């Protein structure tokens, strides 16, 4: 069974966390990204977490590459 991989950046914020939950409830395999681990603590188990500051182009690329390796190439970003 192929999984729909979705990534939500800024998932520690109100909109980001709501988006992560909506997509997870819709059946997506969700990875949540934010600048700090603390910001992602509120998310339920089952949502993967990656810490990184996407305003840095090198970090953004590293975050995407890590997600692709760990969860599979994202189709929904």
């Amino acid at each position: 069974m192929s999984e729909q991989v979705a990534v939500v950046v800024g998932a520690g914020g109100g909109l980001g966390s709501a988006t992560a939950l909506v997509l997870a409830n819709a059946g997506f395999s969700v990875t949540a990204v934010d600048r700090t681990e603390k910001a992602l603590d509120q998310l339920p188990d089952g949502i993967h977490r990656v810490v990184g500051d996407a305003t840095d182009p090198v970090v953004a690329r590293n975050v995407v590459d890590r997600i692709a390796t760990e969860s599979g190439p994202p189709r929904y970003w």
Partner: protein
Amino acid sequence: MNTLGAFRPGEALAATPEDLRVMLDVNLGAALWLSQAVAPYMRRRGGGAIVHVSARPASVPTAGMAAYSLGKAALNHLVRILDLELRPDGIRVNAVAPQLLDTARNRAVLAPEALAHAVPPEAIANIIAFLVDGLVTDIGGAIVPAYGA
């Protein structure tokens, strides 16, 4: 789904180089760097969908938030450029543009009357989910307004 954003109030004549740098870095730069990084994976998969979060001041001139508005306005244009450049690869790029979100952070700093038309984050999240839905194959370059009643 790029929900990153930062806000700084301030009129155009009061904007500092730091204000502009931060507003562009967070509201535009992150969108560009993330899109650059994820597009090659989507191309190899034969397609995908990217959604960025813009804001009403990006397209409706609003006093008192110049640097922020400029960052979001540039983001709108980026979404349309990315749509042109990535649509041949089956990658759709869209954005949703809220006006004001009903969040704990906003409730802590804004008066109740200012929040009268605030939209719950879940409503915006539902629009984002719609934009990535596999059934929605022909929408690209759209900036979907979500301003509340």
